[in-house]
């Protein structure tokens, strides 16, 4: 994700809860192997990732809990994938998106993760392990984490498509994206993705200009408006791409769009200034607009959500003590403190029960269960994010993640799509 976090977490009441979480999460395992507890302090793991989860409080907590140093490099989605593919030795761990891994993993830059060494592997949310949130729910289209989550063997270049003992990424953070709106300015209830094209919002709509993600939002809109019927929105045919771009160009020429945004700040500014009243948006950006006292809703829509997820990947050169430390780090990631930390930002974490143990009942109720907040929801920096009584847009975890219809993707016709997207921007 090119998404960046807005809220700077601090660490209130972390100590006891973290310990409790770690104890609970580690289950049968009673502690860390003492054998290398001494020299592990000298280990430094270099991690590259986006601002979503490349957060200093996490590195500080790692130092505190595990004793070794986690060195973070934060950049944007494309650059993470680029560096993972081309400069694999310049870091040890890639915090990377699932749709990127579809391209990066076959280059051989990463080694698979042995799930037997991940203690809470079975507790990971089933989206990642079975492809479905519940046995009844449908898997989303596109590059779902499950479809690229496992490989058959250590040297496999293709994905297993089923659960095996070897994971490509250990899931860390994911979310369901939808349209953000200004409820005070749209003047009517927004219910469908096609509402982005409503002539009433002429010159007041926006879509994000990151081709791989923007095309998905466009596809959600086109499908909702009945303009295009897709086989798989996450892997369009050339004809489908042509039709999607044609409809985008038409809308652009008709003056529907005010702007296209590329960075988090741009999307916040467009919305906060009222230049745009309906647009593609990321969850923390909505929070950022609201924190300025401007009403903004992350509107659930009838067709469902577009989702994304990322995870930690081990670079192939990792071995020995560093590899052990990396596994230790991944186990710690799932053990609760980190999950709670990410959940409080409005994202979701991979193992829910350990995270729950690290959150207050009010927090858990608001963020995960769709319940009205019983007290103010406070950002880690102490700023009030939501007043008591507020309900999360879209409701509970199950309501939101259960309605994911497609995942951020890399298409087979990627190169063609980019060309056409440039055509749209230049039109």
């Amino acid at each position: 994700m090119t998404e960046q976090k807005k809220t700077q977490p601090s660490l209130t009441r972390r100590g006891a809860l973290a310990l409790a979480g770690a104890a609970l999460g580690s289950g049968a395992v009673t502690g860390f192997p003492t054998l290398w507890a001494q020299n592990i302090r000298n280990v430094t793991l270099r991690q590259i990732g986006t601002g979503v989860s490349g957060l200093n409080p996490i590195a500080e907590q790692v130092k505190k809990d595990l004793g070794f140093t986690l060195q973070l490099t934060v950049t944007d989605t494309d650059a993470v994938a680029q560096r993972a593919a081309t400069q694999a030795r310049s870091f040890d761990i890639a915090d990377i998106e699932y749709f990127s891994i579809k391209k990066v993993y076959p280059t051989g830059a990463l080694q698979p993760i042995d799930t037997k060494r991940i203690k809470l592997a079975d507790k990971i949310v089933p989206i990642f392990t079975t492809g479905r949130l519940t046995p009844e729910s449908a898997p989303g289209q596109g590059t779902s984490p499950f479809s690229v989550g496992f490989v058959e063997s250590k040297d496999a270049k293709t994905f297993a498509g089923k659960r095996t003992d070897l994971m490509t990424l250990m899931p860390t953070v994911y979310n369901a994206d939808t349209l953000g709106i200004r409820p005070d300015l749209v003047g009517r209830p927004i219910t469908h993705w096609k509402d982005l094209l409503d002539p009433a919002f002429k010159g007041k709509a926006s879509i994000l200009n990151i081709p791989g993600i923007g095309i998905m939002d466009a596809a959600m809109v086109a499908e909702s408006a009945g303009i295009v019927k897709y086989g798989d929105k996450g892997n369009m045919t050339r004809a489908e791409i042509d039709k999607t771009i044609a409809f985008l160009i038409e809308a652009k020429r008709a003056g529907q769009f005010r702007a296209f945004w590329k960075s988090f700040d741009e999307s916040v500014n467009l919305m906060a200034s009222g230049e745009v009243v309906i647009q593609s948006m990321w969850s923390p950006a909505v929070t950022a607009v609201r924190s300025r006292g401007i009403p903004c809703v992350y509107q659930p829509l009838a067709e469902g959500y577009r989702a994304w997820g990322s995870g930690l990947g081990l670079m192939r050169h990792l071995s020995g003590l560093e590899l052990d430390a990396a596994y230790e780090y991944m186990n710690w990631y799932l053990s609760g403190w980190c999950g709670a930390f990410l959940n409080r930002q409005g994202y979701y974490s991979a193992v829910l029960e350990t995270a729950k143990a690290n959150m207050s009942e009010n927090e858990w109720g608001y963020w995960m269960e769709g319940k009205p907040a019983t007290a103010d929801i406070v950002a880690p920096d102490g700023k009030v994010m939501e007043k008591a009584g507020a309900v999360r847009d879209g409701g509970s975890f199950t309501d939101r993640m259960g309605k994911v219809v497609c995942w951020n993707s890399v298409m087979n016709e990627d190169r063609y799509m980019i060309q056409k997207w440039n055509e749209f921007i230049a039109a």
Partner: protein
Amino acid sequence: MSRWFPWLQAAPLALVLATFLLLPIALIVVVSFYDYDSFSLIPDFVLTNYQEVFASPVTWQTYLKTLWFAGLTWLVTFALGFWLAYYLAFVVQDATWRTVLFILCTVPFWTSNLIRMIAWVPFLGRNGIMNNTLMGAGLIEQPLEFLLFSDFSVILAFVHLYTLFMVVPIFNTMMRIDRRLLEAARDAGAGFWQTLWCVILPLCKPGIGIGSIFVVVLVMGDFATVRLMSGGQSASVGLMISNQIGLMQYPAAAANAVVLLAMVLLLVAAMLRAIDIRKEL
């Protein structure tokens, strides 16, 4: 030994230029013939990258748009820059006052590019200062939408940024004009416009040339201003290259870079043909 001395003196700079300018450009040219897939460059000699550049109507459109931006920006910065320079050189007599005004000209550079562009939103936006003022004055009924996220705003930002690059060299050449030449023209019966056209303008040519090269080259290579000020609705070659780099289509980006470089070099060569800037250097 002494015969080699001039070469030795030139060697350090030549070496630096060769290493940090010529070599990278050579690499770009080489890479522009590579093939590529999603994540790797495939050393090869293929023309597909260039074929895609030249065959696609989008690239033509984008190149034309970029030229259009450059041309329009040049026109406006020249018109503005010339008169600003004229004012500073011929109207303002006091040296201190001149310095103060010059410093004022650099104000746009006191903040970062990004902040400057973000700051245009509250000024030009639908509910911005400009629209509110105009509506408050009863001059318009509806907010003017073209003020922001349009070609207008792109040109505006370019002009805001690059007029100084026009002012400085023109000002320099104007200051070198012997004031007696103006009297001589006046003595020969030239009016204000005749003096301007027949004496000042021709003598400012080197400055105009240098300013034009600055402005055109800067605009041709720009990607941030076009993206932010057009609200992502306009393309430029720089933006296209930046997108391609973002998607790791290095050879395609390299091919575009080579074409852009060639185009800019041609433009500069054309300008140098028209104007002898050596007088200024």
